């Protein structure tokens, strides 16, 4: 019953947060298209080369994922009014900055003017991984169905950046089961780019190669990591660096071509073009089916590789000032198949981002396929102890954009909803975060829920500098006519505690998930990080889980530097891993990890070609990083 769910919606989780850097949210709260590798990579870069606060811009601070929009604006306003920060202690005098925020920010920032670009230099990364048990696709004898390659995964990444605004890099990647060698053109996936970013003059930036665009609030064009509902209830307004060179291994969420930016005073003009091949096929009726998992392991998967060609061309005109960003974007894209069938779509959108006193407003209106999509967001701090955010969205059923990633429960079409987030600082070390999201899907089949409600609450208690507790509760239900017997409700509660003892950091979490018919799943997690010496660090995890049918647990794992993954824990069993990181010197770092998942009472794991005989799945990963 909704009343009961609301009354028991807040269970306090004791989470002792260590002095570790801020971690991303639970995966259930993250956008499913999150490309978090680029976020972690950015954070790691600034950990090694801290960001100079006196020479930074809004988009760079946003990329840190530590400050919300109001805090970023307050910091920039403070520097604009009072001059450069002389010491990091001055952050205490910036409005809306408290001890918790400053502690989270410190690892990534400095105020020392070095004259050196913090990211200048080169990075070489080599990563290897494989599962020790063979999946069915590796042992099957039928060559038409078997995986064409071996079980190893490889990733090579190189990036460089010079002091003169030139940067570039490349990525080569192969998934398990994909073939490597001259017959396949080498690796399965390649990506690269060259960037010229002088920082001044009329030509502000030019990228040739693979790049990402992040425009407005994501209704028209947005590649990569996208904010959605999360425990940080205020960070719902998007404002990112609009053009970014692409350096991830995701094989779909980028453009390939060229883009450049012209600038005159407050006026900016971007022109972009992309021409790339996609995996997919034409559907029988009309339209295309896109395959976005990036796997090319079998004959069947290989036959759809690069079968579609997509071209995109567009431009954007925007006005930027300290308190206002307004822009208009237009684009046309065509997807075509070898048979000659093609579809063309036009996009146009207008967006703005404005700050007024203690409020930030942002909105975007997009038009495509003779339909509109609209989103309006507001963040406001009416009192130093209170922060509010609202997002209203209205996406017509007919609205279509292949590149959209708007704020939504499902996708940027056929959805209306209202989100409200509230953050209260009850006491200096006690923070309460809440959000409520009610939404509906105007067009639906008779078998699907046409509306839903999502409630979230988190109590964050910092007992001391090394001890933090988190209590989280989340209640979701579809079809608000809750008296109907098939209304689907799921409630999740979690309790987490982290604490630091000398060189050991421990994290303990208990999590439960319940449905309306009182079935429940449970998860216990224990993490330990040990600083064994100045050069050697170890991480260990043990998870005991029992999930509901069709509702797995997702646990975020930070397996190796510059990477992330989500363990999908379905059924009943144990997952454990051990990770060692060794810094040979200031430039070279090696890491190795062994992980094991054991399922209780299962004869096989997975189905089809992914099936593993037995009830155990183990994997090893190794990584080498060179900074120079």
């Amino acid at each position, binding site marked *: 019953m*909704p*009343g009961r769910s609301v*009354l028991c919606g807040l269970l306090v989780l004791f989470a002792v947060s260590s002095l570790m850097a801020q971690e991303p949210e639970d995966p259930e709260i993250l956008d499913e298209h999150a490309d978090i590798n680029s976020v972690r990579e950015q954070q790691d870069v600034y950990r090694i080369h801290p960001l100079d606060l006196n020479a930074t811009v809004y988009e760079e601070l946003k990329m840190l994922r530590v400050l919300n929009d109001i805090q970023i604006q307050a910091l920039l306003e403070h520097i604009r009014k009072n001059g450069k920060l002389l010491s990091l202690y001055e952050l205490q005098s910036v409005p809306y900055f408290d001890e918790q925020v400053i502690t989270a920010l410190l690892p990534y920032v400095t105020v020392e003017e070095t004259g050196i670009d913090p990211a200048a230099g080169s990075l070489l990364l080599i990563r290897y991984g494989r599962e020790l048990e063979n999946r069915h696709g590796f042992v099957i004898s039928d060559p038409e169905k078997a995986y064409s390659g071996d079980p190893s995964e490889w990733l090579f990444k190189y990036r460089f950046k010079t002091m003169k605004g030139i940067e570039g890099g490349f990525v080569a990647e192969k998934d398990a089961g994909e073939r490597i060698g001259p017959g396949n053109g080498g690796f399965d996936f390649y990506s690269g780019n060259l960037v010229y970013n002088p920082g001044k003059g009329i030509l502000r930036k030019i990228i040739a190669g693979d790049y990402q665009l992040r425009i407005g609030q994501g209704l028209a064009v947005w590649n990569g990591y996208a904010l959605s509902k999360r425990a940080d209830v205020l960070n719902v307004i998007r404002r990112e660096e609009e053009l970014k060179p692409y350096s991830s291994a995701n094989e779909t969420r980028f453009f390939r071509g060229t883009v450049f930016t012209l600038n005159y005073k407050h006026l900016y003009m971007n022109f972009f073009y992309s021409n790339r091949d996609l995996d997919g096929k034409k559907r029988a009726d009309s339209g295309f089916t896109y395959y976005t998992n990036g796997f090319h392991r079998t004959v069947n998967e290989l036959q759809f590789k690069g079968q579609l060609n997509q071209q995109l061309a567009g431009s954007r005109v925007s006005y930027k000032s300290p308190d206002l960003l307004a822009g208009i974007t237009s684009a046309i894209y065509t997807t075509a198949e070898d048979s000659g069938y093609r579809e063309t779509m036009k996009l146009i959108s207008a967006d703005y981002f404005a700050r007024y006193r203690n409020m930030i407003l942002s909105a975007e209106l997009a038009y495509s396929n003779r339909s509109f999509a609209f989103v309006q967001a507001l963040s406001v701090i*009416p009192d130093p*102890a*209170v922060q509010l955010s609202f997002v209203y969205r209205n996406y017509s059923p007919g609205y279509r954009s292949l590149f959209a990633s708007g704020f939504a429960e499902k996708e940027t079409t056929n959805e209306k909803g209202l989100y409200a987030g509230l953050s209260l600082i009850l006491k200096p070390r006690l923070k309460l975060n809440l959000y409520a999201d*009610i939404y*509906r899907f105007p067009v639906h089949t008779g078998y699907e829920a046409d509306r839903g409600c999502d*409630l979230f609450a988190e109590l964050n208690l910092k007992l001391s500098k090394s001890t933090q507790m988190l209590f989280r509760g989340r209640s979701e239900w579809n079809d608000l006519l809750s008296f109907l017997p098939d209304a689907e409700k799921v409630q999740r509660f979690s309790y987490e505690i982290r604490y630091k003892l000398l060189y050991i950091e421990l994290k303990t979490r208990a999590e439960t998930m319940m449905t309306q018919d009182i079935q429940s799943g449970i998860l216990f997690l224990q993490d330990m990080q040990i600083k064994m010496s100045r050069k050697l660090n170890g991480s260990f995890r043990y998870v005991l889980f029992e999930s509901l049918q069709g509702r797995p647990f997702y646990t975020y794992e930070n397996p190796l530097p510059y990477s992330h993954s989500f363990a999908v824990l379905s059924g009943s069993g144990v997952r454990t891993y051990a990770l060692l990181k060794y810094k040979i010197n200031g430039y070279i770092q090696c890491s190795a990890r062994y992980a094991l998942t054991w399922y209780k009472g299962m004869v096989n794991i997975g189905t089809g070609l992914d099936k593993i005989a037995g009830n155990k799945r183990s994997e090893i990963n190794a990584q080498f990083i060179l900074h120079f």
Partner: protein
Amino acid sequence: MLLCLRITYCLILLQISFAYSQALPEDARFTGMSGASVAVPAHTSPTSNPAGLISGKKVFSVNSGNKYGLKALNCHSVSLMVPFKRYTFGLVYQQYGFSLYKYRRGGFSAAYNLTPHFNTGIHVSGHHLLIGGKTNTVLTADAGVQYKIKKGVFGVHVSNPAQTSWDHTPEGTLPARFRAGYCHLFSAVFLLSIEAEKQLSESPGLKTGLEYFISKRLYTRCGFALPGAEASFGTGFVLGHLQADLAFEHHAVLGYSSSLSLAYAW
């Protein structure tokens, strides 16, 4: 056939009005806060917690609202509040309906400031219902308290504890309602109110609302209530002695409600 339809319509309205009459629309200020009013001090709404009427001002107000777009649920009310020493007395008149179905209510409130931190109040209402040519009149009573702490107020309000009935049947019983909540006054320009409500025959509900002074004369309000996932927004404007408030409420299934209030304080 037409008479049959009209009677059926009246019966439907009767069902709604049983809950409606006990939870008649708040004034626009509290509608904009999803009705989270039990702990809000110094208000002028005679249908909310009577203990909160202590404001030290004479107030005359009119309110007009509509629930869920139903024409028959256009509700109008008028009220007067007068302070006297440590008391505040209030009179209210409300009505909604149409020719075959008409509901009227007249009420009297009295609030008393016991101590600087403690207020108490009672409210007595006479309800009159005309349906299909037949009339019924009943009396209900409410009581409430508010207790102030440093930066907040606790409030409790009980309505119709005796469960008065129109026709001495369970179906005709006006529900008893219990509300308890807390309002935190973060500053002179921002308050946050939260309350829990329970009617005997219904599942419990939770309401939260906030009010923010954008400037000296302009308010904005919003709120959220469960069950029903009702979201509300409101705004208010003060010009000298005159205050105007407008609010909208959206129920995820039943649709939109609106409310407009005008008050003159002196």
